[in-house]
Structure formats: structure tokens, C-alpha cells
């Protein structure tokens, strides 16, 4: 099946590969952020947000 004029933007295989790589990088970054907050919460205890500015 070929893309018609009303099918919108059709990504090339290379663009799809790069989008997938970007998506994986974003997912990994979010995973690191979640792990970081979890680890710091363990280190600091429940008072992590209860303190004077």
C-alpha cells in the first residue's frame, strides 16, 4: 500500500528508527529520575520534604 496525499506525514524507516531511539532515551531518563527519587527518599527518610527553606 502506498501513501496517498491525504495520509498526512509518513515517516521513513530511518525517521521511525530515530523516533524509537528518542523514545527509548526519554523512557530511560524518566526511569533514572524515578529511581533517583526513590533512592533519595530511602536515604533521607520520610522527612525529605519537611524542612525549612
Amino acid at each position: 500500500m502506498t501513501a496517498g496525499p491525504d495520509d498526512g506525514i509518513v515517516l521513513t524507516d530511518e525517521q521511525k528508527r530515530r523516533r524509537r531511539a528518542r523514545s527509548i532515551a526519554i523512557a530511560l531518563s524518566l526511569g533514572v529520575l524515578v529511581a533517583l527519587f526513590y533512592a533519595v527518599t530511602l536515604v533521607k527518610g520520610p522527612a525529605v520534604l519537611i524542612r525549612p527553606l
Partner: protein
Amino acid sequence: MALVGDGAELSRPLGPAFARAEPSSADVEDYVALLKPRVMSLVVFTALVGMLVAPGHVHPVIGFTALLCIAIGAGASGALNMWYDADIDAVMTRTARRPIPAGRVQPGEALAFGATLAVFSVAVLGVLVNWFAAALLVFTIFFYVFVYTMWLKRSTPQNIVIGGAAGAFPPMIGWAAVTGDVSLAPFLMFLIIFLWTPPHFWALSLLKSDDYARAGIPMLPVVAGPDETRKQILIYTLILAPAGLAPSLFGFAGYLYGAVAVGCGAMMLMLAWRVYRDRTGAAATSAAKKLFAFSLLYVFALFAALLADNLLARLGLGV
């Protein structure tokens, strides 16, 4: 256009501008390049030293978090710098292959990437480490992006002298991440990088002055000429060499650091003198290249010696 109400407005098809919009062709490596990883390595190293020589103890997880936030904040500054400077990057051979002028990343993508990372790095540093360090990081990003990139870089030959402060803050932020304040010792680390920046960048700009002239950047060799630049390099190195000794003189470092600072300072002076003396031909180019290369080693060597000296002192082996 009303936000709520006319359903016809909301269901309107995308206009021709959207129909023509190109999908992103950026790879992950392009986004990594936006973070200026080589600059980031110096930032991370000096911040790590600032953190490790600070009095007191920081949990390794908190220390890692602080270092990560400082690195990401520096990377965000780099991305915002590349977004704003894309026009001049495109006409300079040194920067023409960067992701935005090469067309691999759209300016809006770089802006969104840099702004998001800047906000996240500061917020995470503030919430998980301390707000004083976060405030210093905000100021550093602000200084690099707004003061240096948007204002000084295109308006004065003193751009990298004043703008150098942005690169000098990381050890101070590292120190503040541990202590929650700053004192004379982090200020001395700041001073070393601040005074080191002009001879480092002017040595490069001597080699790339045609590039800067083509881009309309008023770097010192373009505005005042190479001879004046050579004189300024020598003057700043004459100030930098004794300033490099300050941590020993003020008692924050021992003889090991002092010896490294004397040796490296003498080498910097010798290379700066050669830049001042050799003004034409291959000798001039070689002198500027050697000063630029050694200046990188200089700042790494001094901070590594500061760290080694401090660790030895903590182990009771200080000299």
C-alpha cells in the same frame, strides 16, 4: 479564538503550515551533542572536587544527585546557547556541524530540550539536595544564557572575561551542595577558573579569528587585533599563576597542591610568553595551539591536585 464553545473551531483541520511540517530527524546523539559533553566533563570534574574538598559529609546518593543536576544544568545551558547562537554557528567552520546549523535538530526542539532540562535540574537539586545550591545553579544558567550568550557575546570583546564566571561556578555549587553555604575556599576555586578562562579562550580565538570575524563576533583578536590579544593573554596568565597558588597560601591545600600549582603555573607562563613572542607564521600558530592544549591540562591538574591533597590530609598523610 475561544477556548471553549464553538466546536467547529476545535475540530478545524490543521492548516497548511502544519501539513508541511517536517518530522524530526534528530537522533539521540544529536541531543547529547546539544549538551556540549566536553564542556560538561570540566563542569562535572570541578564540581566533584568542590564537593569532595568541602568540610562535612554528604551521602553518596545525595552527592551523585547534586553532580547529576549540575551536569544537566550545564548541559541545558549548552543547549540554550546552541539554540540562540544557531545563526552564527552556521557560518563558523568550528561549529557548522552542530545539530541545529546542520539541520538535524530544529531550533524549537533545542529550546524545549534546554528549557526543560534547566527547570528539572534546578528543581531536583533544590528538592533533593538544598535550595542554596539550586539558587547558585539558577544563577549560573541565567548568567551563561542571558548575560553571556544573549548579551555579552555579540556586544563586547570582554565577552569571555565576564562570561567566564558561568564556567567558574560549578565547584562553588558542588561545595554548596555539601555545606549549604560558600566561603573563601570555593571562592578561590571560582577565581582560578575565572582567571584561567581568558588565556584559554583567547588562545583558541587567535587560531579561529577569521571564523569569529565572519560571524561578526567581537572577540578580542577581531576587535583589538592579535598583538593586543597576545598582551592580554600574558597579563591574565601573570595574574593566574600566583592566583593558582592561593589555596596553599590560605591554608586550604598543602605542599602537593602548591608544587603542582607552581609547576603548571610556570608552564602556563612560559607558553603565554611564547604566544606573546612568536607573532607570525607557523611559530605563532604552534604557540597558540600549545597554550590552548596545556590550559586544559592546567585546570584539570590543579583541581586533581587539590582533591589529592585534601584526601591525603583526611587520611592523616597530608604534606
